[in-house]
């Protein structure tokens, strides 16, 4: 017990008496440690078969697409754009249908969509999280608000289109509203469930320790609900992209949804696929960012799950 640093983590935790000295190396706060851990996991990931399986998955999808459209020319697939046509268009400096990596319009569409999703997502988060936490925490608030929410929630974004156009004068308003709605419901509901998921004994312990009602909210409700809140945010950003397209089809001159819809009416089929794939990639990246923020904010949880019981 003399040299604490030499003891394994397990032994240290079982150490008896005041002889167990503080050990600086056990502090998990350092960023360097986090970066090192991340690198370690990344190297392991590269060594495992998982990344190659991922690549294989994409190859299979594109291969099937290529074979069915360009090689076998299956009955209903003949008129569809094949992968080579799409890639040629996408990489062309002078695209046949006006949209590729080299045209500024392409980026204007992406940025417009990103901006709409961003505004809608921020609004849904800023309103949804506090509302959900309060509904989950206060019985009175729940009685008022929850039934109304549950009634509105199943109405799909598309059904809101007429009202959205009537409600908002600008062209941006309805699109953002339609993008906002499902994201908001997902965030609110998950935040509420997050509060319900908190073990009753944490509330009791906080009561015993003399925490006021506001302190309970700040120190128990908010961090305790966080895992569910972030699940909600991941779902919500997905839904935002989902309904963005519905919104952009009714309004606007720009945006990926607009690209897809107008390309259809203008018979520029490769552009449809360019729009779809871009939408998928941007959506995937935005969910990943939310997930990383969540993991970063809930270090305690990763450690609990990773090192549980020890």
């Amino acid at each position, binding site marked *: 017990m003399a040299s*604490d640093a030499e003891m394994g983590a*397990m032994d*240290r*935790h*079982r*150490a*008896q*008496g*005041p*002889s*167990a*000295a*503080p*050990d600086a190396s*056990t*502090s*998990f*706060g350092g960023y360097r440690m986090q970066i090192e851990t991340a690198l370690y996991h990344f190297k392991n990931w590269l060594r495992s078969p998982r990344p190659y399986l991922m690549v294989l998955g994409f190859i299979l999808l594109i291969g099937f697409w290529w074979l069915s459209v360009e090689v076998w020319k299956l009955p209903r697939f003949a008129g569809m754009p094949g992968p080579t046509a799409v890639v040629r268009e996408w990489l062309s400096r002078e695209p046949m249908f006006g949209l590729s990596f080299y045209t500024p319009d392409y980026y204007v569409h992406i940025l417009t969509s990103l901006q709409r999703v961003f505004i809608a997502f921020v609004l849904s988060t800023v309103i949804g999280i506090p509302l959900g936490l309060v509904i989950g925490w206060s019985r009175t608030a729940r009685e008022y608000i929850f039934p109304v929410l549950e009634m509105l929630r199943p109405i799909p974004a598309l059904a809101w289109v007429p009202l959205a156009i009537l409600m908002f004068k600008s062209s941006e308003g309805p699109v953002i509203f339609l993008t906002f709605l499902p994201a908001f419901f997902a965030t609110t509901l998950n935040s509420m469930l997050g509060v319900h998921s908190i*073990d009753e*004994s*944490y509330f*009791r*312990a*906080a*009561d*015993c*320790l*003399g*925490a*006021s009602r506001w*302190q309970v909210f700040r*120190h*128990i409700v908010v*961090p*305790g609900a*966080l895992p569910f809140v972030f699940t909600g945010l991941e779902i919500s950003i997905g839904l935002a992209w989902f309904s963005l397209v519905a919104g952009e089809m009714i309004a606007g001159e720009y945006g990926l949804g607009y690209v897809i819809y107008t390309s259809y009416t203008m018979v520029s089929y490769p552009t449809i696929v360019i729009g779809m794939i871009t939408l998928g990639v941007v959506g995937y990246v935005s969910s990943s960012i939310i997930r990383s923020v969540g993991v970063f904010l*809930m*270090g*305690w*949880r990763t*450690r*609990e*799950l990773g*090192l*549980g*019981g*020890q």
Partner: protein
Amino acid sequence: MQTTLDQTKARALRGTIRIESAVKVYGNPQNGVVAVDHCSLECPPGEISMVVGPSGCGKTTLLNAIAGFHSLTSGAIYLDDEMLCGPGKPKADPGSDRIVVFQNGALFPWKTNIENVIFGPVMQGKLAVKEAKDKARTMMAEAGLSGIENDYPGQISSGVRRRVEIVRALMNDPKVLLLDEPYRALDSLTKSVMHESLLETCYRNRITVFFITHDLEEAIFLGDQVVIMTSRPCRTKKLLKIDLPHPRDYSIVTSRRFRELMDETMDAVHEEAMKAFELGEREG
């Protein structure tokens, strides 16, 4: 050794829990489930009172009433001269003079161990964060918990978590510790270490302990008195003063007196366990 006991009593003049014919009926008062039926009990200050009874007999209901989580249907509970709950006030206010250590542990997993330990005094505004941390470090060192301050509860073993939770309680200088089968989930080796560490804590802090268990050996080893409860409805069946000398260590488990005490209580407990079994009460 008798002098040590007397000294303990002399220094701890506070923290007497007195339960007077407590009744708790769940559901409709006329025909609901009677969990506790006219139960009376006194826990002397600075002593460890072990409450033993079959699972689901209503011990936890009693503890919840003392802690202020539940109301009583009738009867009264006093802490020293203060009425916690009683006529006109069915539910006690939870307070930092009576702190519960929960069966499954209730350290906040999103706070580090030291943040957990300082929670009470900081929330109540009694100490600034820095002072509280200094005090916490000292108390954790005394309890042999140095080196884990900045770890999260999920990173330490469940036995250590219980000890951190007890330190978190002691930071508030409570009169009473209420323990609800805190060592139930631990393996027997860890349990024996926990027992000795709890006794040491009690010797140092002169604190009244209300300890619920269904482990008779644990009850006799730790207790100054053992209260055996009847199966639901819960009532005191037998009160036994444990005259084993303090300070105790695990060698007394094999002593003759310990065996005699075990024999003396075994029958009573077994009888209640059989009754509970026949009633088919579920665990709880």
